[in-house]
């Protein structure tokens, strides 16, 4: 275990920021802390780094206790790497000096070798003598990564490291950072509010809300098996429809979903992602399906977004979104049949 947080409680001005948070990170593992702003993910990172002192709880790096309640080993003694959102390169030092900044106790030739080694790793060795402000955002990010990696930290902490980059560049840098970190085999904890980015980078995602962990697992687990409304909706748009439990199935306007653990007759929420809503032209044998109309269709490139109106027995319209292959060329006002993939639907108690 590289990093262990046990029952961390943290508050600012009486406002609870972290509520008994526990987290374990294994060697070589890439963990993403994901959540909306204000969920305490950055605070968690700062507690790991020794930049905040919690009310209670323990932080262990390796087998060393570095935070024990308000007793906090200062960040400079923790041997960690920290990557900042604004890169925080020292503007008065050139790239070489920036990377060498953390190499305390290295001899001169050792320093030179190590600096060039990590700069080569991020493909910035040509810029050793440039000053930070002359570099582009992506280049600055790479130098910041090299600077954090140079002293061979026990763990890397990344605080929204890509949000300062424009979207075109972000994907490339993200890819590169992942490869560099994986090749050095250093454990990493990254904070992000972007679920796509978390899924792209992480071996494991820790979903947070209001200072606590909601769900912790591999990306596909969180996506395909969310624990509640929040976890399900955080990873993308989702349709919420009402259902009634009848004979261990939830009956909805899109068909039924097999369930267990609910009472007969209970009203539930059934959540289904737009890509798991199935539409097809209506045939004569489809009498028992609800009347469904396409209100609008929007071509989005890879797929198309359909706005559907599903009428129930009383004639009231439920508005749903569906994503279909854009080759299918839907027609507005066309009368269709909408169902769902019951294996991809999530059923929760109504809230």
């Amino acid at each position, binding site marked *: 275990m590289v990093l262990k947080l046990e029952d961390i409680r943290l508050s600012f001005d009486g406002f609870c920021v972290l509520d008994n948070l526990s987290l374990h990170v294994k060697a070589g593992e890439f963990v993403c802390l994901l959540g909306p702003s204000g969920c305490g993910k950055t605070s968690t990172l700062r507690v790991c780094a020794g930049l905040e002192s919690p009310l209670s709880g323990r932080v262990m790096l390796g087998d*060393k206790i570095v935070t*024990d309640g308000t007793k*906090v080993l200062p960040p400079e003694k923790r041997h960690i790497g920290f990557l900042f959102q*604004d890169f*925080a390169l*020292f503007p008065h030092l050139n790239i070489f000096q920036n990377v060498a*900044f*953390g190499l305390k106790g290295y001899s001169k030739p050792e320093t030179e070798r190590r600096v060039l080694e990590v700069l080569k790793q991020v493909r910035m060795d040509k810029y050793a003598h440039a000053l930070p402000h002359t570099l582009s955002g992506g280049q600055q990010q790479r130098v910041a990564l090299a600077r954090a990696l140079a*002293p061979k930290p026990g763990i890397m902490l990344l605080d929204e490291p890509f949000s300062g980059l424009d979207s075109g560049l972000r994907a490339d840098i993200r890819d590169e950072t992942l490869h560099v970190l994986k090749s050095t085999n250093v454990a990493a904890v990254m904070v992000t509010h972007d679920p796509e980015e978390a899924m792209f980078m992480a071996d494991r995602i820790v979903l947070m809300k209001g200072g606590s962990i909601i769900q912790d697992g591999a990306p596909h687990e969180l996506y395909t098996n969310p624990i509640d409304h929040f976890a399900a909706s955080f990873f993308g748009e989702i349709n919420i429809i009402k259902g009634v439990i009848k004979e261990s199935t939830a009956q909805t306007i899109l068909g039924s979903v097999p369930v267990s653990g609910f009472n007969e007759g209970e009203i539930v929420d059934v959540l289904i992602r737009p890509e798991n809503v199935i539409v097809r032209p209506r045939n004569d044998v489809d009498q028992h399906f609800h009347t469904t109309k396409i209100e609008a269709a929007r071509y989005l490139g890879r797929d198309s977004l359909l706005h559907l109106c599903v009428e129930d027995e009383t004639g009231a319209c439920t508005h749903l979104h569906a994503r279909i292959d854009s080759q299918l060329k839907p027609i507005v006002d066309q009368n269709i049949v909408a169902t769902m993939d019951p294996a991809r639907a999530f059923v929760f108690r109504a809230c």
Partner: protein
Amino acid sequence: MKQYGLQNLFNGWTLFTVITALIIASPVFIVVSYVFVPTGEIWSHLADTVLGNYIYNSVLLLVGVGTGTLVVGTGCAWIVTMCRFPGQKVFEWALLLPLAVPAYVIAYTYTGLTDFAGPVQTVLREIFGWTSRRDYWFPEIRSVWGAMTMFTLVLYPYVYMLSRAAFLEQSICVLEVSRTLGRTPWQAFKDVAFPLARPAIAAGSALALMETLNDFGTVHFFAVDTFTTGIYRTWFGMGEPAAAAQLGACLLIFIVSLIALERYSRGKAAYHHTTVRYRALSKLEMSPLKQVICILACFFPVLLGFLLPAGVLLNWAFQTTEWWMNLQFVEFAFNSFILACVAALLAVFLAVLMAYGARLRPSFFTKFGVRAASIGYAVPGSVLAVGIMLPFAWTDNLVDSWAREHLGFSTGLILSGTIVAVVFAYIVRFLSVSFNGIEAGLGKITQNMDCASRTLGHNPSETLKKVHLPLIRASMFSAGILVFVDVIKELPATMIMRPFNFTTLAVRTFELASDEQLAEASSAALAMVLVGIIPVIMISRTIAKSRPGQEN
């Protein structure tokens, strides 16, 4: 395993910040504490005879200087910022020049110009054929009215500077809207620009009035009895330090109410700009006649506040070369230079440590400490001198008597009447000057820089040395320069506290002028004016760069 508490680590810095702050603020506390020391006869004697006079003169000066600086400062700032006329660019910085002239220096030059034997009255007599003083009336400059004029001439730049900065900050949109709503330019100024700039104007006036209350040289020379001259006389003439301290405390009440008034007016008028759109100000086009009026309105303050006195000083200095082309003058200049250098270096050093301490641990204690340490700037030099000399003399006596008793020799004066006391007074008075500059410099460094350095294995001291100090070099330099110049010009504290036979340029000027050797005093005065121009240049550069959206 060894544990390092974050609190313990930061406590060193916090402790240093708070203790330094308390030491710096102690003279003020000491003066205030003397309010409770009974002095019996002397105080009632003072109250019966001179106190009323001090209050009357001080209030009169405050009202006069307040009005004068407000009209001249705000008026010129408005004209220069909003109107287009030939020379407008020059006046932008030239109007700051009187800031380089200490009030007592301008008082000496105008006295020399306008007294009975001076060129003005001589010329008048020659033209009209008058022969004696009884033949005509001429305003007496050595009066409370003269002092008021002198202060206005050299202190209006404070109001000019801050109100101009405020006018530059105002969005042109707001002004243009008021024009489209049917206001004339003058009404737009009266109804929109002036009220919006009021907090800044109040702050500028408060600075000017504090300088007025701080002044010793001018009122002493003009024989206008105010608190500062009263403190000096009570201390040295009557030998009553406790009563002097009580006068000082009275003066502090004046200053505290001034600051409170300024805060109050600012608190009520906390306007926020509702628009963030800025464009280059399009200046008003004017008729030739109005342009001439603008030029004259801006030229007179510069002429009377800087060109004329500086010219007179220059002229006198050329007539009295034997007074400055000698080793003695070099010695005075060297004394001033060394004092100012030491004070500036110390002030910057302490300010860096305190500002960094407050940054590391922004707690109630550090904030309070920093506030306490900066009150010295509002306290007149003469009051500070009293607050420093009293405990220093007490300590010296204690050490001396102990040494005599146990070691068999006298230690003499260790603190009071030495350079140590003078430098301490400068630090107390000017620390906030350097602190403000350095705090602003540190504020530009993001907290992530600190975190980056810390996570890369550097402790707070190493971080200060390797990251912050290189990045705030420019702020440290300009803060040092400001303190340096303030110390060169400082008179009252230096007068009271200097060691025997230790003379600076300011003291030299004062001594010669007190002996009516005005022309002979000119060289030392001129040297101070020349040094004083440095911060004027720095300030005008800062203002020019300050308008949002107009950088580069």
